[in-house]
């Protein structure tokens, strides 16, 4: 399947500040096929949410797309007018945010919020929209949706509210969902339910998902591919099995080593020493070079290009580049 639903090329997001321009996303390129789940991981501040916000066209000023382009369904969307983008957002591209307790307007019944979303994007009557809303609530697993539709958000538990949020994101039948840490605020058992629900809905409806999370376990469970972000740059992207079992980038290796493995008791999980640089202090060359145990002079001088290995795994590291050059040399 070669058709591409979402195509991000060379995306660069900047924040102009008094002390110069901060480059929050630098040369991000990735693509999603219809129905595909892409996990997006990285430390807090790596630029995951900004990538999501760029896709749904909700970057908060003064943040702006400074270079690159975003194509959705063949159409360029990063240069649409606000009004055009609004019509796309919520209809073709849905979004789910982190905290279900605060994502719903406390003043309105959930039915009203569903109906207004449906009627904003689809030409249906109030009664028809309400019917669709009830169906949607049933689909996300709200018991007795005919009655619950007239409840206020505060009358639901956290897990139930996240289901309502999912219903709101899905009620117009979008082709893509950007889910920004949809389970981080929930307790563990609810997390598993919500993840299972997302996967089922996504498969049923052939919907693509960008699943932003810092939980590698969640990614390993439901993602088809995974993108690893570091300091606003793409460190590695590839099929989830490849990235988990055979990570190329030293940063990804460090991330994988720090995942607790169920059943294996360890005293201590290895952590990558140091912390991610602030946007104003990203080193020359590879952004990870200051923390990387394999770093050499070239890493500090020049930014590594994205390099694909034989398993379809793209990573940005001079070591892989050199390795490939060696093996490539042998073949010649």
């Amino acid at each position, binding site marked *: 399947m070669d058709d591409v639903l979402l195509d991000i090329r060379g995306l660069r997001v900047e924040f102009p500040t008094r002390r110069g321009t901060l480059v929050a996303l630098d040369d991000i390129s990735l693509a999603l096929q219809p129905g595909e789940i892409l996990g997006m991981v990285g430390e807090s501040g790596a630029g995951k949410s900004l990538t999501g916000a760029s896709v*749904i066209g*909700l970057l908060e000023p003064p943040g702006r797309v400074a270079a690159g382009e975003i194509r959705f369904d063949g159409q360029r969307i990063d240069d649409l007018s606000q009004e055009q983008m*609004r*019509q*796309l*957002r*919520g*209809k073709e591209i*849905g*979004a789910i*945010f*982190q*905290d279900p307790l*605060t*994502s*719903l*307007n*406390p*003043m*309105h*019944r959930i039915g009203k919020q569903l109906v*207004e*979303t449906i009627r*904003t*994007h689809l030409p249906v009557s109030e009664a028809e929209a309400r019917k669709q809303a009830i169906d949607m609530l049933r689909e996300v697993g709200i018991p007795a949706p005919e009655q619950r539709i007239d409840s*206020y958000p*505060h009358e639901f538990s956290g897990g139930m509210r996240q289901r309502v*949020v999912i219903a*709101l*994101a899905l009620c117009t039948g979008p082709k893509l969902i950007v889910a920004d840490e949809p389970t981080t605020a929930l307790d563990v058992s609810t997390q598993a339910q919500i993840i299972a629900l997302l996967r089922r809905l996504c498969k049923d409806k052939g919907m693509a998902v960008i699943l932003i999370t810092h939980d590698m376990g969640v990614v390993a469970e439901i993602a088809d591919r995974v993108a690893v972000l570091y300091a606003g740059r793409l460190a590695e992207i590839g099929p989830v099995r490849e990235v988990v079992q055979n990570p190329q980038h030293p940063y990804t290796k460090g991330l994988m080593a720090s995942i607790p493995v169920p059943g294996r008791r360890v005293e201590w999980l290895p952590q990558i020493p140091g912390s991610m640089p602030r946007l104003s202090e990203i080193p020359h060359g590879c952004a990870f070079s200051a923390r990387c145990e394999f770093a050499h002079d070239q890493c500090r001088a020049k930014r590594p290009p994205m390099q694909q290995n034989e398993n379809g795994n793209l990573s940005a590291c001079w070591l892989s580049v050199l390795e490939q050059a060696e093996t490539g040399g042998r073949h010649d």
Partner: protein
Amino acid sequence: MFLKLINRLFQALMTMIFVGLVSFLLFNFVGDPISNMVGQETSVEDRDALREKLGLNDPFLAQFARFGSNAVSGNFGISYALQRPVSTLIAERMPATLELVATSAVVAIVLGVLLGVYTGINRHSWISKTIMPLSLIGVSLPTFVIGILLIYIFSVTLGWLPSFGRGEVTQIGGWSTNFLTIGGLKALILPSTTLALFQMALIMRLVRSEMLEVLRTDYIKFARARGLAPRVVHFGHALRNTLVPVITIIGLNIGSLIAFSIITETVFQWPGMGLLFIQSVTFGDIPVMAAYLVLIAAMFVFINVVVDILYLIADPRLRGRG
């Protein structure tokens, strides 16, 4: 929800009884009511007879009960200074004050909320950048300074508007109104502007900061992510969530409009209850003062009850919890 209301009404009643007590004490024990009523030449016997007739020798509680039942039926005795029933005086003066306060309240609320919403949404427009400093002047200048300034500009210099009095009024039943004649309306402009300006600036700043706060919340971000039109996001979702604090402030402020109207009425010689009260203070006219006190308290209590009911309407989270 029902229990909550009952509880509120009970509190309101207790407040009124307390205010009644204070004003009763004022009435009976500040100075001697008898010597306030009769002339120097009245004999001691006559004074005692009058004291007995007015029931001033009765036990304290009996007197208070009588005062209470009189007050409830609107009877506050005779004004010392004007020798007319206090209830008649108040009834004559009430329309002037209520019309002034109501006009100011409507102007302050409507303009305050509109400007607050506008400056909250369009934070960086030049209009907002002009209005904000002006509103700061609005909240920091004392009412009488604003009044005098307006009189100087619009009455003295330009000669467009009258500087004092109610101007032309029309009688409808027992109510005298400014609203039906051009002259009456013109006379209303300066005092109501003076009274409204401070409240308007205050409401505007409050609505603006509440809007800014609400616009940062997750549910607004999510409403945008659902692709709702900006109008729906701003008015259907954001403004609605600013209502509870705004209702609180507006409730309190209508109370202070009534209080500040004393100053405005004095500056503009507006023949309302405030002016009556100031005159009664200079004359030591206790019955008028007591009546004014009870009446103002009743209005405050009434506004508070209305505010509580509005809360319940405005915020579904407050309903259905005992």
